[in-house]
């Protein structure tokens, strides 16, 4: 560790000492433990933390959450806040899948109520929920409708009979990201997203039916309406081709902008522009359109999943107690107020593979969660478990109000495919754990095998021990749909 100048500052925190010769403007801070830190050092992920620390106007530190792993540009799990006056915005700090995120819905069902219906329910959801390229979207939207979604987000789904009004309060920004300008989105981006609203995508995106297997915090679980053995629904998806194209479009713009504003880059994927520059403003507002699209996408997806519940049980969603616990985006840049050296400053916080983790009392936390903090949803892998946590006040001072977003990969996709057979994995998950897995591609399934991921329990424990978020409930998968 010495050669990289990494110091362990407490049990779950490591500091990459600021080195001006490496161009660092701030230190790096990595939340981890000794074992996982070895892997971080092997992968040279530290260099990506250092590269981010060298960007102009970065405030306090270049942070990495416990699920940090090697990405491109920013590390996955990277968090960086930039001063609005002399800081930058970078599409590489958000990623291609703008506002990729997770939502979790509650039901009144206990496992015993529906255990014989899970298999047909999963089959129906699999059949009726569009997945990736090649599957037909359920909606074909006009330019005008697309632009309306860019502006209104989840509100559009409510007005167009594919979303629920009562969900709005449980979505970040109440489902509408305010800084969105459709004119800054290219026609190519609009075209890529046109038939993708309410579609899952592929890779690590999923719909899961889960069971609550353990409660850690009774006050928080009560506030969220969670109890042991309860059936929950988790959905992981993002802004689909629309967000991917906006990222591609603005990476081009930012390559030129970086030279124009004399920003020296240690990695071209970190291309950026000053926050107040025309290029920076346009990216932020185009990104806002993708955030609205992503939130609307997850709302549509859950609407269609709920319809399958309604058909299967011949009851309305209200009668089944189905409602949104919370929806978060874990690839996004947001303008937030943070206390820096006892002064409130407005900053642009980039989170790439990191979840906002605002604590109790924060103005952005919905009223019914105000006393417990914002729900932080941490999906694990399809064979083990996922977690619900809550944000903490400590996260505000430790990590710009951020925590982890998942388990983080252990094996490369090609490595996983060499070691694991998708069809055998599917059989094994069912025979050993009773988990029903449905996927279009068995090779794609192998890439997402539990063995390809770190144990999310370890990640979540680091997050809790470091004070970034607090465990509320542990969930196990019963049925999994992969895109």
């Amino acid at each position, binding site marked *: 560790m010495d050669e990289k100048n990494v110091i362990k500052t407490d049990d779950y925190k490591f500091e990459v000492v600021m080195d001006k010769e490496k161009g660092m403007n701030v230190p790096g801070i990595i939340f981890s433990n000794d074992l996982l830190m070895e892997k971080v050092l092997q*992968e040279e992920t530290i260099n990506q933390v250092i590269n981010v620390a060298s960007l102009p106007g970065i405030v306090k530190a270049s942070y990495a959450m416990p699920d940090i*792993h*090697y*990405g*491109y*540009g920013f590390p*996955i799990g990277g968090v960086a806040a930039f001063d609005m006056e002399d800081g930058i915005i970078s599409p590489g700090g958000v*990623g*291609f*899948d703008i506002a990729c995120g997770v939502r979790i819905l509650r039901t009144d069902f206990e496992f015993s109520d529906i255990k014989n219906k899970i298999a047909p329910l999963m089959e129906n959801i699999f059949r009726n929920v569009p997945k*990736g*390229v*090649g*599957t037909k979207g359920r909606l074909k939207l006009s330019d005008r409708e697309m632009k309306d979604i860019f502006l209104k987000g989840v509100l559009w789904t409510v007005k167009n009979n594919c979303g629920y009004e009562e969900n709005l309060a449980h979505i970040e920004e109440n489902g509408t990201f305010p800084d969105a300008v459709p004119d800054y989105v290219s026609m*190519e981006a609009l*075209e*890529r997203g*046109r038939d993708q609203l309410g579609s899952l*995508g*592929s*890779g690590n995106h999923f719909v899961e039916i889960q069971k609550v297997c353990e409660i850690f915090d009774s006050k928080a679980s009560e506030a969220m309406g969670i109890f042991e053995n309860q059936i929950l629904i988790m959905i992981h998806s993002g802004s689909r*081709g629309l967000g*991917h*194209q906006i*990222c*591609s479009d603005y*990476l*081009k713009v930012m*390559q*030129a902008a970086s030279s124009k504003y004399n920003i020296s880059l240690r*990695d*071209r*994927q970190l*291309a950026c522009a000053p926050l107040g520059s025309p290029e920076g403003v346009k990216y932020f507002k185009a990104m806002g359109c993708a955030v609205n699209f992503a939130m609307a996408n997850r709302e549509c997806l859950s609407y269609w999943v709920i319809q399958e519940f309604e058909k299967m049980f011949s009851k309305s969603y209200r009668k089944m107690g189905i409602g949104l616990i919370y929806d978060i985006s874990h690839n996004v840049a947001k303008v937030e107020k943070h206390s820096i050296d006892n002064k409130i400053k407005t900053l642009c916080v980039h989170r790439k593979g990191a979840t906002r983790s605002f604590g109790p009392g924060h103005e952005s936390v919905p009223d019914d969660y105000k006393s417990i903090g914002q729900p932080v949803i941490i999906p694990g892998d399809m064979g083990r478990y996922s977690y619900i946590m809550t944000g903490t006040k400590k996260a505000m001072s430790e990590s710009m109000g951020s925590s982890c977003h998942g388990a983080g*990969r*252990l*094996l*490369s*996709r*090609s*490595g996983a495919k060499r070691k694991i057979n998708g069809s055998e994995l599917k059989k094994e998950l069912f025979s050993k754990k009773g988990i029903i897995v449905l996927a*279009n*591609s068995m*090779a*794609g399934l192998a*890439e997402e095998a539990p063995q390809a991921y770190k144990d999310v329990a370890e990640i979540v424990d680091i997050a809790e021990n470091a004070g970034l978020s607090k465990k509320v409930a542990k969930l196990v998968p019963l049925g999994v749909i992969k*895109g």
Partner: protein
Amino acid sequence: MVSGKNFEVIDYTSDVKIKAYGKTMEELFENSARGMFFLISENDASDLKVIQKISISTKHKVTCEELLVFWLERLLFYHETKKILYFNFKINSLLLENNDENPCSVLEAEASGEKINMKKHEILNHIKGPTYHDLKIIYNSKSKVFEANIIFDV
């Protein structure tokens, strides 16, 4: 080229990576596209009825790496919006003109493929985009080929 390979898939933890080869820059671009579509679907070409002409021109200075990214992005766009799997690629013209007065770079190409049919094709990866991370086209004077490492977000 390594044992006559057009490209190879390289292990990369979070995303996917290929190393593409080409005796000429044009061939490198064609093989990069082959590599990208191999990541998307390992199916073999059978019926290349759909032909897509691709034309990219810029009026500002670009590097060959940037032009490679633009080419792959454009193919991804057609793949996703027209739902086509492309298998064959032909670069007809590749010109990089980066002089100060009148920079102008042009790529003219053709890609052929077939409409995605879920009964026949297996889509392995939904590629979000090619990245600029560690992207560098080099000429390997020993093996006398151009090489490029390309990381894709999936």
